[in-house]
């Protein structure tokens, strides 16, 4: 049995991109104390509005821009619900996801009926003939710019410090003159933008179109990755790469004769199984952000 390692590596980086973007977005919101279960819906909206934008304006870049705007709006919706109205975060998040997915599906049916959706101008790959390096620009931007920037911002800037304080001890942040609500709004907006970028990567880069259920649970995987990573940036990236590697591996294995007997479903489940095992192993003695799930109200 031979594994095409270079192909594996190439596929891993591509597959990991949307996961890493979404996980980063979730790291930012959860560090501020907000579990954003709207993540799946936000990714979905990113994928759909990215597709719409690209079709409308004839450019994938326009699609990406519109997806980011939609992601910010989705984040702000979560913010209104959880920060301003103090709605339970589980309810608000799942509600947001259901609402956004339904809205996208509805619009898609309205506009295109039940038929196949058109192909759109999609992003091209850089270094198309070089193995491993042949990736979308967005993948490069994600791993070389966004990830280090997020790591640096969380660790070494005032923004990151305030974010952490709001998520750990909002009373202390408030007493320090920081507006808890403003920081949480900002965190949800930025987080939403990253999640939507992850979604848009699916439609604008990987698929070049849109299909129902395009995100296929990637948002939930990202949530698991964040917990696995204990809210840290680099471990979240590592988790995303691990998931993507197993996913790429199983895609290769299903076409290898040795594995022909293994049911297809088992192979598809493999990366998720890895996530569950990783969570079970690393998920003990977790220390959640101090104000996780807690709305903040001054008394």
């Amino acid at each position, binding site marked *: 049995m031979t594994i095409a390692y270079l192909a594996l590596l190439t596929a891993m980086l591509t597959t990991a991109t949307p996961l890493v973007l979404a996980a980063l977005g979730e790291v930012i919101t959860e560090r501020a104390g907000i579990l954003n279960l709207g993540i799946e819906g936000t990714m979905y909206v990113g994928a759909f509005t990215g597709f719409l934008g690209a079709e409308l304006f004839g450019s994938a870049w326009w699609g990406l821009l519109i997806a980011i705007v939609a992601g910010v709006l989705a984040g702000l919706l979560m913010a209104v619900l959880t920060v301003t109205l103090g709605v339970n975060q589980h309810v608000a998040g799942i509600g947001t996801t259901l609402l956004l997915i339904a809205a996208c599906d509805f619009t898609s049916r309205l506009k295109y009926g039940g038929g196949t959706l058109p192909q759109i101008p999609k992003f091209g790959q850089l270094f198309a003939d070089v193995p491993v390096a042949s990736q979308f620009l967005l993948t490069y931007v994600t791993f070389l710019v966004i990830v280090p920037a997020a790591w640096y911002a969380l660790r070494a800037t*005032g923004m990151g410090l305030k974010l*952490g304080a709001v998520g*750990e*001890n909002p009373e202390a*942040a*408030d*007493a320090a003159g920081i*507006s808890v609500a403003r920081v949480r709004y900002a965190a949800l907006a930025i987080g939403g933008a990253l999640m939507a970028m992850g979604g848009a990567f699916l439609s604008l880069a990987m698929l070049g179109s849109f299909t129902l259920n395009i995100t296929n649970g990637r948002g939930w995987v990202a949530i698991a990755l964040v917990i696995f990573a204990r809210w840290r940036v680099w471990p979240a990236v590592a988790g995303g790469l691990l998931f993507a590697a197993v996913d790429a591996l199983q895609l290769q294995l299903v076409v290898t004769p040795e594995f022909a007997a293994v049911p297809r479903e088992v192979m598809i489940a493999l990366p998720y199984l890895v996530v569950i095992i990783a969570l079970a192993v690393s998920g003990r003695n977790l220390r959640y952000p101090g104000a996780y799930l807690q709305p903040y109200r001054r*008394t």
Partner: protein
Amino acid sequence: MNQSQSDRPGRGDMPAPGGLPPASSVGSAGFPGSLIGYDAARASGAGRSGSPEARAVPLVQLRGIRKSFGDLLVNDGVDLTLLPGEVHALLGENGAGKTTLMRILYGLTRPDGGVIEIAGAARTIASPGDAIGAGIGMVTQHFSLVGRMTVTDNLLLSRAGAGRLDRRAGRRMVAAAAERIGVHVDPDAVVEKLSVGEQQRVEILKALSRDCRVLILDEPTAVLVPQDVAALFASIRLLTAQGIGVLFISHKLGEVSEISDRVSVLRRGRIIDTVPTAGATPARLAEMMVGRPTVGVRRDDRDAAGGTELADAAPPSAPPKDVLSVRGLRLAGRGKEALAGVTLSVAPGEIVGVAGVSGNGQTELVQVLCGLAKPTAGTVTVNGIDVTGADPEKVIAAGLGRITEDRHACVVGKLTVAQNLVMEDLPRFRRGPFLDRTAIRAHAERLIEEFSIKAKPDDPISTLSGGNMQKVLLARTLARDPVALVVSQPTRGLDIGATEFVHRQLLARRAAGAAVLLVSEDLEELLALADRIVVIYEGALVGELPAAGADIERLGLMMAGQSAQSGAAA
């Protein structure tokens, strides 16, 4: 002698209305400069003389502050003046409204009415940000530090912009502020790993690093051991010498006499009077606070209340000799053992006091006794029943009542007073599968009355003042008539009246034949109540002596780790 109305500062010598003049001409980073930059004439105007005729512009002038929660009037037209360089103490019973007033000044609570003047100019303080901008710093009753962050990061929190953090400058800032109050603090220490006294220092450093001219300290000594209190007072004196005004809340009259220049007494939301400390005796202050003369519990009261003799005369079906007994108790701790073989027993009708400097195993001992930690070795029996390592539920069922030091951990903040009062006793209030609400309410009303808790049965317990929360815990425990009581720091943060009340309750339990283990850092409390005192040091009992006529000096030596023999020899 409330001077706030008569002595309005002239507007002529008022600084720019932006807030208080900066403490330092060098800017926020150059703290040592503030000693020079400060206008010495203003400081000496108030100084330790405490003269209300001082010509200095008050740092803070509160006029007619009003605040009510629902139909509870908490601040009822409060006037208060803070002069530069003075320590102004605020005294009052639990629930008098001291914390609320300070929270209003710091922008944490919105007043219903009244005017806040800072350095002579009226200011709206709608948020802590406004307060910080006006040069006000506050150390709250419950610290507001981010435990997982370092000291430096906690200081940077309020001053950082969005961009890169200059942690090196932050460390310098910590060092400079620490120097101002004459302490050393490791800027890279993670806050949650620090002792309570050290955390409080970080809180003060935080306020100072923001160039505050007004420092509010809400019960800063309630959580401190005596050495830390002395260090805090030294720091306060350094600060007032730099012209900073300190608002100081405490229930301990001795401390108030020692550190403050003037005292204002708050009773039911009104300022009763503001007097120079020099002319006020503790007895007079206590009377102003409570509205009647008070006496603390002394040994004579204890003896009058009866005790051992009474219990000895108990019927033959009396419980075994020692109601509470502990043998060879060990508990692993971080690094060294937290408990290193504690053996101890308490007879019915006896109060055994546990003295010691905090952090020597008291907390762990209480946790093990109450079933909150499992010992690595040894046994605990209550009323003859072995409860070693049992759940709290079983320990309670065996007849143990507990009042632990962390009152916030013992109540469920979101539940009401009534629900908290029955929490450990649910089976009694069951009717079929349901809880009997009427019975719970009646029970709560009776206890509220009996223990004079200032609250209604349906108030969420998180809104109660510290003292009243403690009373709820006491009521919950004592209502079950426990045969053995484990009590830890029962009067921390309680006013004089409430302290006296708790002491009487404990003596009453003793008279009724309960075995009481009293853990306290307050030696006076132990000497007044206990029959015997044992001293705990580094997880082991290093000595025992009868409380009557106990030699305080010898106790102190034993607390410092000298065994009874060598202590006596010294």
